[in-house]
C-alpha cells in the first residue's frame, strides 16, 4: 500500500497539474487583456452639425490608460487627445479633451473584444479668428473593437462621439458634436 500510495500520488499530482495547466492558460489569456493598459490612437476627427459647416475634418490623435475593475469585463479609462479643425477661410477650432470613461466589454469568449464606453470630462476649446479659449465640460460615448495580438500588444479600432456642452454659458445657442475615429495600439502592462 505504501508503495502504491507513493507511486500513484505523483501520477495523480501530475495529472491534476496537467489539467490545471490548461486551466491556467485560459485564465492567463484573459488576464493579459485585463491588465492595466496604455496606448495611443490616430485617425480622422470630424466636426458634425453646425460647426461642421464652419470647419473641416482633419487628422487627430491621442493617448489613453485603462485599469480593470475587480469585475473582469468593466474597465475605467482616462483619455486625452489633440484635435485641430481648419477651414478654407479664417475659421479654426482646436480641441484638447481630457476625460474619464467606463468601458464595458461584451462577455463573449471570442478572440475579438468589443467594448462599449461612456464618460465625461473637460475639453480645452480654442477658436480662431476670435482667438478665445475656454474649458468646457464634455460628454462622450463610443465603441471599440480590439484584437489582442499576443501577451503585450493590442490593436483596435475606435469610434467615439464627443459632445461639448456650453449651454450653461449665457448666450450659447448650441454645443459641439465631434466624431473621433481611428486605429489604436495599446500595451498590457
Amino acid at each position, binding site marked *: 500500500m505504501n508503495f502504491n500510495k507513493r507511486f500513484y500520488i505523483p501520477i495523480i499530482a501530475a495529472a491534476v497539474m496537467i489539467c490545471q495547466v490548461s486551466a491556467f492558460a485560459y485564465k492567463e489569456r484573459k488576464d493579459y487583456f485585463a491588465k*492595466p493598459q496604455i496606448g495611443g490612437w490616430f485617425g480622422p476627427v470630424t466636426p458634425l452639425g*453646425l*460647426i461642421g*459647416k*464652419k*470647419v473641416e475634418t482633419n487628422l487627430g490623435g491621442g493617448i489613453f490608460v485603462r*485599469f*480593470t*475593475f*475587480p469585475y473582469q469585463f468593466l474597465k*475605467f479609462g*482616462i483619455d486625452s487627445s489633440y484635435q485641430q479643425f481648419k*477651414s*478654407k*477661410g*479664417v*475659421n479654426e*477650432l482646436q480641441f484638447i479633451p*481630457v*476625460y*474619464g470613461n467606463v468601458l464595458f466589454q461584451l462577455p463573449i469568449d471570442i478572440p475579438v473584444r468589443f467594448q462599449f464606453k461612456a464618460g*465625461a*470630462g*473637460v475639453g480645452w*476649446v*480654442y*477658436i*480662431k*479668428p*476670435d*482667438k*478665445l*479659449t*475656454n*474649458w*468646457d*465640460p464634455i460628454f462622450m460615448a463610443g465603441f471599440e473593437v480590439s484584437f489582442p495580438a499576443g501577451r503585450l500588444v493590442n490593436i483596435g479600432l475606435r469610434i467615439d462621439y464627443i459632445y*461639448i456642452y*456650453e449651454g*450653461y*454659458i*449665457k*448666450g*450659447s*445657442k*448650441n*454645443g*459641439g458634436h465631434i466624431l473621433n475615429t481611428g486605429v489604436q495600439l495599446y500595451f498590457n502592462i
Partner: protein
Amino acid sequence: MNGSKFNILAQRVLALITATITMSLFSGCGNKPLLTELETNKLLIIIKGTYESNSPQPWSLPAICSDSACSSYSADHLNLVRDDNIKICTGDNGTCLGDVNPTAFMLDIAEMKLVSKSLSHFKFSNNRQTFAFSLNDAEPFFNGFGTMMDNDDVPADVYPAVLVYVRKMLMDGAIKFVPSGSGWSPSSVWDTFAEKALPSFNFNQYQVSSHYDKLRLEGLYLNRVYPLIIPIRDYMESWVFNKKFPYTVLEIRFVVKNFVKKYEYENYENNSYGVIHYYAFSDSLSDVDNDETVIGGNLLTVARTYTPGFVGEIRGANNRANAAHIIAIPANEDPKKYTLSSASVRKSNNCNIPQMPGETYASSISHQLDIKLRTEKFKVDWNKKVPSSCMYLDNIDNAGKAYVQNWDSYAGETEGFMIPTLAVFNNPAVSNSYIIENVSPGSYDLYISSVAPTYGQLYKDGEFIKYQYCPVTVTTTGFTDAIGNSSSIDFP
C-alpha cells in the same frame, strides 16, 4: 493589482475628474460661448451699385429708340449713352440700327480679402459668389438697400483696405454688326456667366488696364480688377474692427447706376469682320478714345464701415430749384478730390498723343490693309499734335519732360479721384427734405451740387456749393452745425 489598491486609485481619479468638471463649470461664468461665436458673424458685407449711400437717384437710362417703330436712335441715347469711342457704326441718321438697352448687370466674384495694417491678407470670404441684378429700382442693389454677401469673421484689428477678386462683369444687350449687302446686320453676342451661356458680354476683360497703364512699364503686370483694391475710408482713414459690437457693416459701392455707356470695338475673329457694341461703365474719369479696347480706370468704388446702433444721421432741406446730390466729406477735406477739372481730363492733356497701332497678325487681306491704313492715319494725327501741343522730341533737353509731367498730373487727378463715402440724391420737385443715414460719429463738411446730375457724367470742379455753417458734427444722438443749429441742415 489587488482590489483595494485599485479602489483607492479609482477614487482619486474620479475625484480629480469631478473637480475639473466643477471647476470648469464655475470658471465658465462670464465666459463666451465659443462654439456659438464660431458660427455667428459679427461682420456683414453689403454691396451697392449706386453713387449714393442711400436714397439714390432713380434709373434714368434714356430710351434707345426715338419712336415705337425704332427707325432711329433717340437723341438722348446718342448724346448720353453712346460713347465718343464709337466711330464706325455710329447710329446717326438711322444707320446701324439693332442696338438694344441693357437690362441686367452680372457680377462674378472669386473671393474677398481684408488687408490689415501690417499688410497681411485675411481670407474672410473664400467663396465664389455670383450675382445678377436687373437694371431697375426694385433691385436692392440699385435702390439703396444693398445686397448681402457671404463671409466669415476676422480678428479684431485695423483694416485699411478690402480686396475684391472680380472674375467677370457682364451686361446684356451686346450686339455684333456684320457688313452685308443690305447694310450692317446685327446679331446678339453670347458669353458665359455662372457656367451658363447668355446673350451678354464680359467687359471686365477690358477693365484690367487703362490707357494710362499702357503707357508705362507697370502696365505689363498691373491688374486693376483682380484684385480690385478698395481703400476703406472711414473717419479715421481706416477701419478698426472691434468685436465688442454685435454687428459691424462694411459697405462696398460700385458706381453702376446711371453710369452705363455703349462702347465699340472691331472684331476679326473667324475670318469675319464685325463691329461689336457692348455696355460698360462710363468713361467720365478715364476717357476711352476710338480704336481703343481698354476701358480700365472707370470702375469707381468706395468702401466704408459703420456699426448699427452707433450711428447718427444728417437731415435737412434742399431749398434750391434743381435736383441735386448732397455729399458729406470729412471736415476740411479738399472737395476737388471728388470732382473733375474738365469734361475730359484726358482730352485736356496736351500730351495725349495718338498711339501707334500695334503689330497684329492679320487673318485676311482686308484686315492687313486696315492695319496699314491705320498706321498712315496715325502718322498724320501724330504730326498734327507734336510738337505744337506737347514738347516731346523737338528739344533734346526737354525731350520727354513735358510728356512725363503732363501724364503725371493726369494720373494725379484720375488715380486720386474719390467717390464721397456719404451721398444722397434729392429732387425738390418730389420732396425737398433729405436724410443722410448711417453716419458714423465725426465732423463733416456738407456740399450740394449746383446743377442737376447728367446721365453718365461725374461732377466738375466748382459744381459743389459748401454748406455755410460747416463743419457739421454728428453724434449718435443728433447733429449740430458750426452755429449750433441741431434741427435741419438746409441749403438755401
